[in-house]
């Protein structure tokens, strides 16, 4: 995603404040913005539940990269249940250049300590924008059952690759996800199925892999191999193994014991099957040192091809932007998670 120039037009910080004052300041800033800027995007209200103030800043930076596709309003919540009852707030009005025109958006950061940190839903609702979906992004944590934020959410965003307290996800230990930290996120996600759409950023980042794999078997010559797969090997970190492995298990009729999960830094998939007795191999793997994926499809004594796909830039806002574009249930994802955890 191209770098987007943003600038803060006005801001206000309040310590020991309350919701009414924050709303009033926000309204004041908005009026100011309406005087100077032409248009406002209205896409979604994004709520981010961040574990710390540093994470809150990182989340805002990620969100700002949307530029013209930015949500009209972002609300970042930093709960600290153990502290004394207190609300600190920062509201700001930011402008971005997008496609030759200027848009503006509002950011609200609320640091909540004391009992209200356990009732974030009641804090968020006054800040929502009418008629727009409300997406709640659990950054660095899993949605807890009974969290009242879930009652207000039209969609929940998680990143199952980010194990709690372990950036980048677990790489060690071959095999299924077992009791690895990522499991907590995926278990929490399963609890939400059927109640609210869940969008997993890790699943979105795997989309190029999934598309590439699907395109490899998309042809009269290659498709019959899907009915006769003998082995599927997925390499990667725990959540990648769970998601890609679960996806393959749920979409393909793999014979018992055919799925192999190996630990690895980068994702790779290898499928082996037979077409009329001939060996058919499909593989995707990272090109060392490059943000490229090489895919190969080969039928023994028959056709073969190689394809190379450039992965999107390592930019967290890409996955978030894609996630916000499709805030709805994804039955394929749900089946993949269930299979990945089983």
């Amino acid at each position, binding site marked *: 995603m191209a770098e987007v120039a943003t600038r803060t037009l006005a801001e206000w910080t309040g310590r020991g404040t309350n919701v*009414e004052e924050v709303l009033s300041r926000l309204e004041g800033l908005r009026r100011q913005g309406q005087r100077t800027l*032409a248009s*406002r995007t209205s896409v979604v209200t994004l709520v981010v539940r961040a574990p710390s103030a540093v994470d809150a800043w990182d989340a805002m930076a990620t969100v700002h990269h949307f530029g013209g596709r930015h949500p009209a309003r972002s609300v970042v919540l930093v709960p600290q249940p153990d502290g004394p009852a207190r609300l600190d707030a920062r509201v700001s009005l930011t402008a971005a250049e997008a496609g030759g025109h200027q848009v503006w958006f509002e950011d609200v950061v609320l640091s909540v300590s004391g009992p209200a940190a356990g009732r974030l839903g*009641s804090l968020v609702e006054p800040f929502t924008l*009418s008629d727009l979906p409300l997406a709640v992004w659990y950054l660095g944590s899993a949605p807890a059952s009974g969290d009242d934020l879930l009652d207000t959410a039209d969609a929940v965003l998680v990143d199952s690759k980010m194990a709690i307290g372990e950036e980048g996800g677990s790489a060690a230990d071959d095999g299924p996800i077992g009791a690895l930290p990522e499991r907590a996120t995926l278990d929490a996600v399963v609890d939400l199925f059927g109640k609210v759409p869940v969008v997993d950023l890790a699943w979105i980042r795997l989309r190029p892999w999934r598309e590439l794999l699907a395109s490899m078997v998309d042809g009269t010559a290659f498709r019959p191999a899907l009915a006769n797969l003998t082995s599927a090997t997925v390499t990667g970190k725990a959540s990648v193994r769970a998601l890609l492995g679960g996806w393959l298990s749920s979409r393909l009729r793999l014979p018992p014991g055919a799925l192999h999960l190996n630990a690895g830094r980068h994702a790779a998939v290898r499928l082996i099957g037979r077409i009329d007795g001939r060996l058919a191999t499909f593989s995707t793997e990272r090109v060392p040192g490059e943000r490229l994926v090489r895919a190969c499809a080969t039928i023994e004594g028959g056709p073969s091809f190689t394809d190379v796909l450039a992965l999107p830039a390592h930019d967290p806002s890409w996955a978030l932007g894609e996630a916000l574009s499709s805030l709805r249930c994804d039955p394929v994802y749900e089946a993949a998670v269930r299979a990945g955890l089983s």
Partner: protein
Amino acid sequence: MVYGASGDLTSRKILPAIERLHRRRQLPGAFALVGTARTEMDDDDFRDLCSKSVPDAAPGWDELVKGFRYVAGDYTATETFDQLKEVLAEVDDQRGTHGNRVHYLATVPSLFDDIARALGREGMHEPRFDDSFVRVVCEKPYGRDLASARDLDQAMHSAFREDQVYRIDHYLGKETVQNTLALRFANTFFEPLWSRQHIDHVQVTVAETVGVGSRAGFYETAGALRDIVQNHVLQVLAVCAMEPPATLDPTGVRDEKVKALRAIRPWSPSEVAEHVVRAQYAAGWSGGRQAKGYRDEQGVAPASTTETFVALKLKIDNWRWAGVPFYVRTGKRLPKRVTEVAFTFKAVPHLPFATRDSRGLSPNALVLRIQPDEGITLRFGAKVPGGAFEVRDVLMDFSYGASFLQDTPDAYERLLLDAMVGDPTLFIRTDEVEQAWQICDPILEAWQDPAFPVATYESGSWGPKEADALMERDARRWRTP
């Protein structure tokens, strides 16, 4: 003249509105304010109160305030009015106000009757000179049912002609409400859609986040139906539902509004249970704070049945609206402060898209946002960029602040000015008041039955499940504003 000059309404609304009118140079040069109330104060104390009520006043406010006067006294005592007459004569001499008077009744409603009769008895209802005027402005609620509203009218009309009485409903002073007239009657493309042919239903929401606070004494005798529905909601609804007036003069608009109110079918007391839900807020969390239940509030009876929430379905029996339900809900301790009217259009007769491609599509809607962020939103479907033919909702947003460079005048500012220049268009006529009570009275009557249920809802939620059921019976649901 402001009666109840030491009260909350005067310092929160009336004085700031006068200051803004002064700042905009819309007050006449010959202007003075005389306050009266039972609170013991002298002129200087009152001037001090006026200065403090507008902490961010523009230069010149303190100079204007120097001419303000105050009379302490009882509204039933002749001496109070003798003193007032003396002060007003002095003001006429000193400020050149020439006997022109606007009597603003900002007291508790139970005193309106006494003050109106006293003004008549003391001869203060008549212009002092042939070319001067006397008007009286009344705050809502105007009566607490049809009978008491008629009694109050009798007291008013014992002193004043109807054209001297300005019954205020500050919602009518809001720009978005007035803009509804512009939207409907200054454009060609909305009005043809504004009927049963295209509109499926209408939702009116007046939501407050606050609880009853220190107003429990008043609220226990009022409730949401009297406090909000009888006046604000029905006035807004009348503006939205009325037929096009021939002119925007006071008679033209108010005639059409009263016709619309007459077309609203009053439920019989036996029908109320089916179409009306009343409820009280229970304890919960609101705006990040723990909130107590209504019955636990100070000044509220432990077995109170006063409603802090009402949801009701109304039907308008005329050619334009037959079959289009108007759903109304208003309440305290709801999740956000918002007032809006949402027109939901009928679904298209046939969607030529695959179900999976149109999951993000809702019926078209036109939403009049009355507060906050006054404006209009139009929701319609658009194609999502890409190879598939996915369609989903998008919003087209008109915001007052973004479209006009000048400040939007506050409702009180507008209405005070109208009362001073003698334009009653945005004030409520006596037949409108009566008609609104005709709609509310059977509901109040049904609620007299101790067996009529009072539902509860958690503070910080959008109301009781009974209100959801009211919509679900019609296969509809409340919006989340």
